[in-house]
């Protein structure tokens, strides 16, 4: 290679570098509508149709590239989306559970504020609790809740669960109390019995588990009371002023509805089949009606 050629190419490079620096300097030193800026804008405007044409021509190739790339990434994408779906499913389940919990809590809270019941609860302090253990066999008769003596729960306290907007019904009574948990005996337990009444007819009796699993019976109802199907059966909240004792359960707490009235001709009392208002296999949040003053069971 000749020395002239080396010098020539270096001069050319120097000139082009100088031109670049000159352009850069001029571009930065001039105002926004200076000649270089205007020239740049003109070139950009002039290139728009050409750019559009290039875009149009290149579109099929670009789409082909995107398709190929998408195909290559399809498996990874599918796995990624599957993982997102699983996460979303978990999140949805968690949110649905939270929504159900919230609905339950709102029902129980509304129950405590419902004027029909709040009058009954003056001597009680409602304590919220969650069911933390439920035997797996059907028609289980005991559940464990996460409130105990530390929260003011005592043996024989009434336990209620929400029904709908602002109603709750008895599900059982506290049978055993630990420091931070309690065992609740449900209405359908063989050893459960509670004084009950049909308020519509002033008829009193005792609710006990029925002969069929999951059913209740209100017996010892005198024949003169015309109890009918669909009448609501609730706690009687008995008290004996002479002895100075009273039930730990408030009067008027719904238990169930009468589904059949048996009135055998030769018997002295009626036996009424009662269906509990609460599905005893499904509730998860309860209120324990703890006594404000130490009432006797």
């Amino acid at each position, binding site marked *: 290679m000749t020395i002239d050629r080396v010098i*020539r*190419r270096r001069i*050319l*490079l120097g000139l*082009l*570098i100088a*031109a*670049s*620096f*000159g*352009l*850069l300097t*001029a*571009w*930065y030193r001039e105002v926004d509508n200076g000649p*270089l800026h205007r*020239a*740049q804008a003109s*070139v*950009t405007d002039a*290139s728009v149709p*050409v*750019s559009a044409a*290039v*875009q149009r021509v*290149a579109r099929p*190739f*670009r789409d082909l*590239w*995107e398709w190929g790339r998408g195909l290559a990434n399809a498996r990874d994408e599918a796995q990624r989306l599957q993982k997102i779906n699983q996460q979303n499913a978990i999140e949805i389940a968690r949110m649905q559970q939270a929504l159900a919990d919230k609905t339950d809590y709102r029902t129980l809270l509304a129950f405590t504020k419902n004027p029909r019941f709040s009058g009954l609860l003056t001597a009680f302090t409602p304590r919220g609790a969650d069911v933390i253990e439920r035997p797996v066999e059907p028609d289980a008769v005991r559940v464990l809740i996460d409130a105990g003596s530390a929260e003011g729960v005592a043996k024989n306290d009434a336990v209620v669960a929400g029904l709908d907007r602002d109603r709750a019904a008895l599900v059982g009574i506290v049978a055993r109390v630990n420091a931070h948990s309690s065992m609740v005996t449900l209405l359908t337990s063989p050893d459960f019995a509670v004084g009950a009444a049909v308020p519509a007819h002033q008829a009193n009796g005792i609710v006990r588990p029925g002969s069929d699993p999951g059913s209740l019976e209100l017996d010892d109802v005198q024949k003169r009371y015309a109890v009918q199907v669909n009448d609501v059966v609730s706690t009687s909240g008995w008290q004996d002023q002479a002895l100075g004792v009273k039930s730990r359960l408030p009067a008027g707490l719904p238990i169930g509805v009468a589904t059949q009235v048996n009135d055998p001709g030769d018997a002295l009392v009626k036996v009424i089949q009662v269906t509990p208002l609460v599905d005893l296999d499904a509730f998860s949040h309860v209120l324990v009606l703890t006594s404000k003053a130490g009432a006797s069971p």
Partner: protein
Amino acid sequence: MSRRIAGSAVVLCLAVPLSVLLQLAVASDLSLVAGAPDLVLIVVCGLALARGPELGCVAGFGAGLALDALAEHALGRDALIYCLAGYCLGLAGEKLRPPAQVRSLLLIALATALVRIAEGGIAFLLGSDGAFGRAFGVKLVAAPAASVLFAIPLLALLRWVLGVKAPPRRQFPVPDPVLETDDVAATA
């Protein structure tokens, strides 16, 4: 000679402007991972490797200036970078034995990375915060990889247009067969 001039003219007048337009219009959509191929650099590289640093730096300056004008950069920024790239690639090309396919691709990868760093450096010098740091991201590996991928067919096409032919294979001297002494004795 006329084939050589015609090839250079086609690349300068057709391939370089087309590469600028494609670079601005579609290159960003052809990205691999995070880096887009530098089609302009591939064309400048093809020309510089085949024709030397003079044409390389002129093509680089022109292409860079067009990029500056169309992409609305500061005028002269890419012109400076691509001009230097074309010159250096031309110098490297003089030391390679054409077509030197693998080494050409390595040069393109190296040049793409250096161009990215230079762009970040100039942007930083001109006051763009963080531009230099961004130049050292994943793009520094992904952009050269994408450029190499696209350079494989493009360089072959450019070589064909520019009329670059592979020189004949080297002929290594083959030693004459040596006769065994026993065979010589038997012959005697």
